[in-house]
């Protein structure tokens, strides 16, 4: 991980915009990922997570702004850099008439490097029939095959869009272990989006929240949980406390009788454990998700 000092960011996005008709999806978005970071991307349905991931990879028309991967502008990536990227889409349009063996041989031909031993081991471990037409595999098997395809060339940047949506809890655990054992320990930069917060909590060291077309917060999850408190009390007292103490207000929702619930992140100081007239409690990842995404 020492390369982080000299290497350019693996992903650097600036002024990224995308609109569908008049509806902005990504709005002047800035985002950076350093080499080796494992970032969980969170946002509500329709927040634009898939649009963002596809835009990063040049798969989305109509975007403006700049995207650089490994320091190279997206529209001028050389082949060697392209080969460092792996992507497992949410809905993979795998070639249904092919068999897994044919599909993997086809993808192998695109890459200078391909780890046959790893691909074979994963096909065995996940019990995927190499000779069955892909269209006849279950949703979970197709999703696993898509992940194997994204891992075969041992990418340095791995983008996973809802990788576990079709997997049962055992399949998800197995996938997470694979991700830790084979991908994260190699120092691969990983972005993955998911709605399954428990998986994200295990594997993502950093979390990024996409809301209103921007990454509104990105931080190590531990620090975010330890620095943020949920506060309930008179709205005026809460706002006063936030101002004088310099808290970053991450979310605020009114309750009855002039009271409110506020999600506030303390600066460098430790967050308060108690305040007169205000109920202070620590937060879970779910609290953060509810407060930070709209």
């Amino acid at each position: 991980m020492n390369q982080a000092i000299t290497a350019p960011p693996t992903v650097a996005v600036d002024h990224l915009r995308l609109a569908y008709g008049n509806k902005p999806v990504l709005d002047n978005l800035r985002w950076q990922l350093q080499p080796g970071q494992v970032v969980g991307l969170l946002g509500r349905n329709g927040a634009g997570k898939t649009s963002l991931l596809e835009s990063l990879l040049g798969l989305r028309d109509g975007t403006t702004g700049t995207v650089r991967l490994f320091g190279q502008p997206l529209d001028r990536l050389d082949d060697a850099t392209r080969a460092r990227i792996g992507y497992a889409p949410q809905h993979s349009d795998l070639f249904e008439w092919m068999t897994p063996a044919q599909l993997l041989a086809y993808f192998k031909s695109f890459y200078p490097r391909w780890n046959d031993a790893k691909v074979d081991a994963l096909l065995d471990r996940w019990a995927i029939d190499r000779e069955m037409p892909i269209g006849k595999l279950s949703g979970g098997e197709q999703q696993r095959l898509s992940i194997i395809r994204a891992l075969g060339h041992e990418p340095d940047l791995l983008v996973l869009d809802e990788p576990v949506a079709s997997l049962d809890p055992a399949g998800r655990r197995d996938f997470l272990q694979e991700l830790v054992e084979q991908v994260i320990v190699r120092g691969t930069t990983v972005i993955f989006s998911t709605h399954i917060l428990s998986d994200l909590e295990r594997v993502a060291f950093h979390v990024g929240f996409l809301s209103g077309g921007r990454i509104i917060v990105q931080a190590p999850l531990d620090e975010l949980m330890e620095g943020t408190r949920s506060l309930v009390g008179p709205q005026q007292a809460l706002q006063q406390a936030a101002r004088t103490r310099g808290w970053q207000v991450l979310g605020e929702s009114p309750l009855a009788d002039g009271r409110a619930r506020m999600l506030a992140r303390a600066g460098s100081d430790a967050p308060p454990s108690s305040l007169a007239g205000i109920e202070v409690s620590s937060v879970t990842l779910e609290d953060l998700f509810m407060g930070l995404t709209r």
Partner: protein
Amino acid sequence: MTTDPTAHFSIVTGSAEPIYRQLAEQVKRRIAAGQLAPGDEMPSVRELAQALAVNPMTVSKAYSQLEAQGVLERRRGLSMVVAARAGPAPRVSDRAELLRPTLERAAIEAHQLGLSEARALALFKTILQETQPADAP
């Protein structure tokens, strides 16, 4: 029979306690209870990360914090071991204090649920009996 050194660790997700802190507290509790002695070796970061399916940096953070607190020390090479203790084994009252954060959370929830003190204590007693390890004295 070999015992897997990672088997003593477990984590819960969805908690307000970050995973690295859960791991650190487990090590402290097991030392306080005498289940870990000075010189005992911790599983490697990689082993524990794989066994629990958590990010290795999270395990690393737990170990670093314990090292900074003098609970673990880094042996030549990479392995972490329980630090040699300066004083005698911790007293029962110190060990009990380690339970406080968990019980405080339970107490708050008991109040929220409107449980009486007697009802909450009776439940805790039942759970203590139900979860007693078979080999306990």
